[in-house]
């Protein structure tokens, strides 16, 4: 028999005491894992729409609503000259900049959401080649037909949902702003809503031409977009870059701060998930407080267990067990309790988070996606992501549970090793 086997045997012998400690660790870890997994799920929910477009930051400006016309700039998004790209690209942590021109076309009885995209800029774009988000657990863009190329003019790429609704197929025609476009491809964008998403994508220069015609006041902006997507280096400070880009935008457009929106996943977390930063912080704190409480419980339970076993520890020392062996026995026992509680807590915590994710449906706030969302119209698809198990959270939870067990064992074993054999044997 080894010390480990003896520790396990002792654990199963004192079932009620062991169960109490295991249960405490289980509850604390389950709560912690559920909170952390849901919060990390929220982070994914707001990060994926950016990732799907290859961006980290979205920038836009707002102007006063102009006179109504069939074709108009989406959601009063203000024109931004593409010359601003250079200034943003000059920021040391920015790796790519791209823009879209979003506009609406009234097609009785619904509004068509159109985005002019630059086929030359595949780095940051809502529909791009080779987008594979499998590693993040989100859908891959599947394409029927092809993407737009720089040779395209009156060619369109449609969201498959829109095409299906209107019986449109690759090779067919679609009317946008009174012009006929050849449908070159259908993209399945339903898997994940992405920033800059639209129902029809056309070449940027054609989009500019349409908007210039329908809103002649935009001609003064020449080559312009109304939504900019920015990619920064991995690990770079998004918030710092967000602020710098906002400053550039303000300087370039001369608009008031309130008319400039530069967004990252974090800035839309509250609006998208419906859970405020205060609630999220509260959840974290409750989990931490529970952890501390349970750690104290484990210490107390371990001390009580050592107290109950004083006589046995006395026998062990009398037959020549070293202090190290006694400490190892106590610590293995509490480590087992930590491990069992941790594994069970991890499973149940993830089940809770998974059940939440299964029913949760989030919609990107309008500020992020320039869809026309009048009642009765088809809006952007909701974000419905599967919950993925993070090995970092799993390993962290098991380590915390083990640490709680080991801490309890460490403190309790100090009392155990301090016992002199003769003193301990008097407890028999």
């Amino acid at each position, binding site marked *: *028999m080894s010390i480990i086997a*003896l520790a396990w045997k002792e654990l199963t012998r004192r079932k009620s005491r062991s169960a109490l400690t295991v249960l405490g660790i289980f509850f604390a870890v389950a709560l912690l894992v559920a909170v952390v997994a849901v919060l990390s799920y929220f982070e994914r929910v707001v990060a994926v729409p950016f990732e799907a477009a290859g961006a980290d930051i979205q920038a836009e400006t707002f102007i006063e609503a102009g006179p109504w016309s069939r074709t108009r700039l989406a959601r009063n998004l203000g024109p931004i000259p593409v010359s601003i790209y250079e200034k943003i690209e000059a920021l040391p942590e920015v790796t790519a900049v791209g823009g879209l021109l979003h506009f609406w076309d009234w097609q009785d009885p619904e509004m068509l959401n159109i985005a002019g995209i630059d086929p030359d800029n595949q780095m940051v774009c809502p529909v791009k080649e080779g987008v594979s988000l499998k590693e993040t657990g989100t859908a891959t863009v599947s394409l029927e037909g092809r993407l737009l190329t720089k040779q395209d003019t009156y060619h369109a790429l449609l969201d498959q949902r829109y095409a299906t609704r209107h019986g449109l197929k690759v090779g067919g025609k679609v009317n946008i702003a009174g012009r006929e476009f050849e449908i070159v491809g259908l993209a399945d964008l339903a898997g994940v809503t992405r920033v800059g998403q639209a129902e029809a994508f056309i070449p940027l220069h054609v989009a500019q031409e349409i908007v210039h015609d329908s809103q002649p006041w935009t001609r003064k902006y020449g080559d312009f977009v109304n939504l900019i997507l920015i990619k920064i280096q991995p690990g770079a400070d998004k918030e710092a870059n967000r602020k710098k880009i906002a400053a550039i935008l303000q300087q370039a457009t001369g608009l008031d701060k309130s008319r400039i929106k530069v967004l990252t996943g974090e800035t839309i977390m509250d609006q998208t998930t419906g859970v405020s930063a205060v609630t999220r912080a509260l959840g974290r704190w409750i989990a931490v407080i529970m952890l501390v409480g349970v750690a104290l419980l484990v210490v107390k339970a371990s001390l009580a267990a050592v107290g109950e076993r004083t006589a046995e520890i006395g*026998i062990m020392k009398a037959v*020549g*067990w070293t202090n190290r062996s006694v400490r190892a026995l106590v610590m293995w026992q509490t480590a087992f309790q930590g491990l069992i509680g941790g594994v069970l807590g991890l499973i149940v915590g993830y089940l809770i988070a998974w059940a939440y994710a299964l029913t949760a449906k989030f919609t990107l706030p309008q500020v992020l996606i320039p869809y026309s969302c009048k009642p009765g119209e088809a809006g952007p698809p909701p974000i419905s992501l599967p919950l993925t198990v993070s090995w970092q959270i799993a390993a962290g939870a098991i380590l915390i549970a083990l640490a709680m067990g080991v801490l309890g064992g460490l403190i309790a074993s100090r009392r155990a090793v301090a016992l*002199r054999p*003769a003193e301990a044997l008097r407890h*028999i």
Partner: protein
Amino acid sequence: MRVEIKDLTKTYRKGDNIIRAVDGVSATLEPGSFTVLWGVSGSGKSTLLNLIASIDRPTEGEILVDGEPMSSWSEERLTRYRNREIGFIFQSFYLIPSLTVLENVSLPLVPDRLPASEKRERALRALETAGLTHRTNHLPVELSGGEQQRVAIARALVNEPSLLLADEPTSDLDTETGQRILALLRELNSRGTTVLVATHDPRIAERPYQRWVMQDGSLSQS
């Protein structure tokens, strides 16, 4: 192993009184000897055995083991002495109730880095010596007093100690069982193990062994 006891004293505080459980005892255990430590209950026999086994520490005096003063030993050395050189048969057996006979006997071997098969083999050998191989998987509560005593003896023997200390090994046992236990100790002694038996049983004390008599903490030899 030669154990030399020099002016050994152990005192306890009981309320305002100081009890001299062992009072200036000097004696020598020669290697291979069989000694009976006789005395009535409370005369200090168990305390003296505990001191020799390093389970307790003396207030004054010294114990020399093969000439080495025990007081100079580190905690680790004392532990090794208890584990490897001493076999202690406790008066109340001190078996762990949740462990089987085999596990109780293996207890001194648990911290050793021996293969499990060797630990088992050694425990079975000790149980064979104690005549209890048919009860290996029983719990102590399922055994008679004599059988529990044999388990305690097997545990004391499992590390093949050179000094066997037995505290009242025949108390609470019927005459026949007591005789068997005594015969077993005698047999172990004949194989070279030094044996010191503390008892108040006159049946043992009457036998022609080297005899130490304890009275009120003091020792006389006969």
